[in-house]
């Protein structure tokens, strides 16, 4: 019995808690990608850098707040800075749209043209971010580091395996729930939200119904900017902020969006968790689990890892490939908002 509880604690510590946090971050990122895809109808390669920009803005404001002696008690100060980060990111998105994307809309450009344009935006933002904050790691989390410490858990339960929950993980999950609830309330309950779903579903009919496309696009960018800033900040809080990591995050985020069905917000969330948990499950070393569950004589010698941790990005690719081969429209049959 203790063995089973220990196993559960082990899995909780190394798969479930980090999976929920990472899954939330991916889901928020994928939601941004899906939003742009659903309304503006292109794959936004600049989304990773937009997240990075949002995180950077939040970090700079966090530093300013910290310098003023402001703090948020046990919670990270970054949460106080986040609303400002969101506003700055929204401004960036709207500015980019006005300056860059709007022209291609008026030209009714092909999706692949948009894609290349977004590569240009990605380049520019990548440079701008490195120019402002530099290419190195930035740690900006403060407050209490843990909600639950390994030692405390062990003492509480008497188990030999510990379960730790970092503050950043708790904050990530709760923030994600709040943001996603607000988003779904907006899309399903408000007139403007419904008009966005209508525009995504059938652009011509939406125009016939008197829905203003420029307004829909503007709100799509506002939502995208918000999601990007939140996702980038949460990822940075959880793992530390490195400008180059956001280009690598594009792959799992795109994979999440496509696995769930690109254009479908529910799918993006499901996809985010599918990818996050698959990564962790496949790269987890099962040695200890097996040691608990199997008789002593059969305990394995190796790490019993399905795939080395270095290949975690390969997992999202593999899932992406399977989905493309088996059901290219994704789990929730995409292309709706």
């Amino acid at each position, binding site marked *: 019995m203790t063995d089973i509880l220990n196993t559960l604690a082990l899995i909780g510590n190394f798969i479930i808690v980090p999976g929920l946090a990472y899954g939330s971050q991916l889901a928020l990122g994928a939601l941004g990608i899906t939003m742009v895809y659903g309304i503006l109808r292109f*794959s936004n390669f600049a989304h990773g850098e937009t997240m990075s920009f949002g995180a950077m803005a939040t970090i700079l404001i966090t530093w300013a707040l910290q310098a003023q002696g402001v703090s948020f008690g046990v919670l990270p100060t970054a949460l106080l800075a986040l609303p400002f980060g969101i506003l700055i990111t929204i401004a960036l998105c709207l500015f980019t749209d006005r300056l860059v994307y709007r022209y291609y809309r008026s030209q009714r450009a092909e999706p692949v043209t948009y894609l290349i344009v977004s590569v240009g935006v990605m380049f520019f933002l990548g440079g701008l971010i490195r*120019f402002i904050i530099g290419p190195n790691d930035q740690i900006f989390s403060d407050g209490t580091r843990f909600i639950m410490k390994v030692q405390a858990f062990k003492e509480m339960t008497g188990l030999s395996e510990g379960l730790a929950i970092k503050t950043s993980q708790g904050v990530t999950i709760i923030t994600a729930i709040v943001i996603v609830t607000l988003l779904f309330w907006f899309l399903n309950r408000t007139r403007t939200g419904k008009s966005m779903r209508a525009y995504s579903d059938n652009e011509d009919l939406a125009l016939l119904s008197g829905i203003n496309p420029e307004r829909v696009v503007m709100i799509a960018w506002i939502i995208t900017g918000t999601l990007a800033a939140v996702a980038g900040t949460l990822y940075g809080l959880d793992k530390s902020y490195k400008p180059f990591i956001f280009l690598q995050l594009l792959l799992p985020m795109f994979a999440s969006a496509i696995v769930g069905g690109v254009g479908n917000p529910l799918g993006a969330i499901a996809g985010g968790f599918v990818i996050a948990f698959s990564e962790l499950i496949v790269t987890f070393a099962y040695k200890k689990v097996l040691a608990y569950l199997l008789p002593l004589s059969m305990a394995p010698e190796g790490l019993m890892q399905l795939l080395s941790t270095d290949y975690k990005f*390969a997992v999202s690719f593999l899932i992406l490939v399977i989905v493309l081969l088996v059901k290219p429209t994704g789990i929730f049959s995409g292309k709706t908002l």
Partner: protein
Amino acid sequence: MSRTQKNSLLFLIMLAMVAGVGIVQSWNVALTIFNLCLISAIMSLGVNIQWGYAGLFNAGVMGFAALGGLAAIIISSSPVAATWEAGGMRAILGLLAGLFAIVIGIFTWKKTVTLEKKRYWPTMVVAVVGYALMRLIIDPAISTIEAIEPAKTGYLGGFNQPILLSWLVGGIFAAAAAWVVGKIALGLRSDYLAIATLGISEIIIYFLKNEDWLTRGVKNVTGLPRPVPYEIALQQTAWLQSWTDNFGLSIIEASSILVKLSYAGLFATVLVIILWLSETALRSPWGRMMRAIRDNEVAASAMGKNITWRHLQVFVLGSAVIGMAGAMLTTLDGQFTPSSYQPLRFTFLIWVMVIVGGSGNNFGAVLGGFVIWFFWIEAEPIGLQLMDLITSGMDESSPLRAHLLENAAHMRLMTMGLILLLVLRFAPRGLIPEKKR
């Protein structure tokens, strides 16, 4: 001024700029830039074949180039006898087991059509069993190989063949990878190819960084043999000694320039051959058909053209060219450093070259390769000087000034983004636009 004159003028200006670097900075620097311009031009030709001929967006240039680099190691480095004895055969056997599992998996998938939805299961079983088998065979071999003198070898080494051969093999490696990706992602929505290639390139880099038994990973493989003589050897030849004496040149600089010139000769030869082949292909019925497909897929498919198959051809060909360029780059460096592969430098910069040069026009792609590489390199000193000028009014010890100077190097990413956006907006057909045929 005719088109040809105008285009020749553009190339002449470009060469003059390289020569300008030779005069202002040094000829060594100029030739270094020139050689990389040649390689960039070949890479951008490869991308142009995919994008310009067929409208395929390849976001995995980096991966294909790195596979070329892998070919350079495997072909040219010397075999490490100790590691081969310890586990070479077993590692090869493991790879074969993996390959065998894939073949059986595909076979199972094809032969179980009648099972409909249930056919996922047998295929999955084959995949899982095959993977487990491969790991069982290869894992011990890998740990043995990597344990043998990890600081010096710890990998299998290569076949000790001339490194020039690897240029061809690099093309084949890249083509094989492209075939697999193409099979999966072509025929689906256009941006799935972009995302799939972005993914495969990341994975290739992770593979090269982590499979130390094959590539030494981040420990890098250095000292690859050269296709051209070494500077030291040249310095000892009588003819160069007398030649430099006569002209009063430094023999060290002369030998180094001579080496770079030999590389330039090799690269230029390859570039000319590929350029000639691509131009011939573009003018052939095959090229006409490709452009017809690009311009109107629906009509072309109505005429009975198998579009996915044609796209696969172009995608594989273009990737092969990129792979060759990758092998050439590793040859020039004389070493393979997996961590140097960054998507911005290896994938998206090449894209800027193609777009700026003129998508669909091979000469445009070549010119784009030259122009963008030149500015990519020269943007750093220029940016620094510019920043120095801008901040000259500030206090010497001002932290803002220090910060601006320190990060001025990143200006070039911004510049590239800006160039790409401006060209797309105001001159979407590039420096040398595609010819109307």
